[in-house]
């Protein structure tokens, strides 16, 4: 077996069940909610100032934070279900050098997360674009800004999926992995900020705003590295776990 075969096999795993479609359905619903909000929603004063400038619209488009969380769940389920269904046996029989198999799996999950992030941002932008003609405002964001949102969301999706995939390989139980991903990405960050307010710029949601071009609490490169670090820690734990523990 070679790495390309393993990667293609892992990608096939992701595309031969209904899970990706379920996630795409969730992204479509979220985009529809955004589009509906633009079409009929107002600010407290009855105006539509929340879409009145390019910056406002970019804030609406910025999907990277959601991509991190949604792809995190995707990665956690994709990795943990391999253990739940025992399909992990075939994986490690094909590639008994475990780090090679894990690398292929995490790469596939990361690519899946990137696609989800891209789709999430694209659907959101599309839904808002469709709704804007129903308001007095046009599409104000520049092509460069839209591109940054799409790239940021793809990157965040990939990172989130790898983070979730790492958790899934460590926990090895779908329910437990999903819970751990939710704790890591949603519940723990606010608690960490309460304990140490200086960390506010470094939690995933804040970093996602930076890479999307919506906030500048840190530099973009620093934010990219920080998001990558959030993903790398569970991935490295997974590598340790997969070598340290029996597969079944």
């Amino acid at each position, binding site marked *: 077996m070679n790495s390309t075969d393993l990667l293609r096999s892992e990608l096939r795993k992701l595309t*031969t069940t209904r899970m990706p479609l379920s996630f795409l359905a969730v992204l479509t619903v979220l985009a529809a909610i955004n589009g509906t909000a633009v079409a009929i929603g107002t600010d407290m004063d009855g105006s539509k100032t929340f879409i009145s400038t390019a910056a406002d619209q970019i804030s609406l488009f910025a999907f990277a934070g959601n991509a991190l969380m949604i792809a995190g769940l995707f990665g956690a389920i994709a990795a943990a279900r391999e253990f739940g269904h025992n399909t992990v046996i075939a994986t490690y*029989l094909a590639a008994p050098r475990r780090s090679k198999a894990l690398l292929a799996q995490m790469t596939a999950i990361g690519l899946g997360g990137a696609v989800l992030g891209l789709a999430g941002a694209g659907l959101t932008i599309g839904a808002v674009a469709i709704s804007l003609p129903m308001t007095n405002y046009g599409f104000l964001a520049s092509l460069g800004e839209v591109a940054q949102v799409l790239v940021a969301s793809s990157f965040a999706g990939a990172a989130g999926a790898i983070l979730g995939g790492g958790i899934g390989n460590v926990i090895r139980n779908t329910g437990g992995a999903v819970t751990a991903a939710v704790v890591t990405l949603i519940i723990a960050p606010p608690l960490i900020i309460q304990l140490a307010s200086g960390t506010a710029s470094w939690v995933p949601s804040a970093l996602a705003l930076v890479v999307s071009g919506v906030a500048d609490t840190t530099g973009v490169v620093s934010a990219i590295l920080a998001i990558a670090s959030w993903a790398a820690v569970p991935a490295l734990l997974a590598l340790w776990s997969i070598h340290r523990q029996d597969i079944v």
Partner: protein
Amino acid sequence: MTARSNDHPLKVDGLTKRYGNRTVIDNLTFTVEPGKVTGFLGPNGSGKSTTMKVLLDLASADHGTTTIGGRRYRDLPNPASTVGVVLEPNAFHPGRTGRDHLCIIAQATGQPRRRVDESLSIAGLDPDAAKRRVGTYSLGMKQRLSLAAALLGDPPVLVLDEPANGLDPQGIRDLRDLLRARAANGDTVLVSSHLLTEVQHLVDDVIVIADGRLVTTGTIDELTGKSAHVRTPCPARLAELLLAAGATAQQTAGDRLVVTGLDLDKIGDTAHRGGLAIHELAPNAGSLEDVFLALTAQPSQKGN
């Protein structure tokens, strides 16, 4: 079919495996020779599946080594083309089709796509059924799919954990014919099973373990020849005497014992010295089940 050159004996040498403080395999040593079907027998929880998992590098050993053709599984040049494996009865994603399951494994192991169809055909799984989601399969169909996956790489070694479980009579016959043909072709075939009547018709050699320890190895004929069938009005007393003489005796029904570890002459002599009548004493040919139960009886049961 021309026999292929097979230099892949399976060797388990001094294998010990612990989970916490519990020793599930204890200094286990045996060899599985090519060109034969070898039955791997033992009660539930005796360590058969764990031994297979260690052999396949899915679990680590605390002590000892396992090799396939002199190499660890992970060191084989193309392990999936060398060893075909059926391990867990339900190792599928229920939402995936059987065909996709095989395509994924074929892709990972570098097998050409045509092998998927060939393996489905050999395993006797209908191509239309292979297009359905595995969640709709019967246990027998899942077993056939597992077997198809094991045969994808046309491997010279098969390691099969309870492959007949859930198969209908025709499926069991097909499996038997397939494994016998593979062995005749020079392949190494290790089969664990609790269907002893099937094993008796299928295997050449037998490895029996209990509580993670080797109980006995040998051919089916040797194994069944090692036991004797005794009918006596005093089975409990005779069992005590035979136990003291180093045999194992299992009371199977009423006045009957299955005795292993002593030949017929010595069983007769032991009964005579104890002043016990014997109404029947014969080699216990034909019942692997009785021998198996006698060999793997818990210490508290021995001598009953």
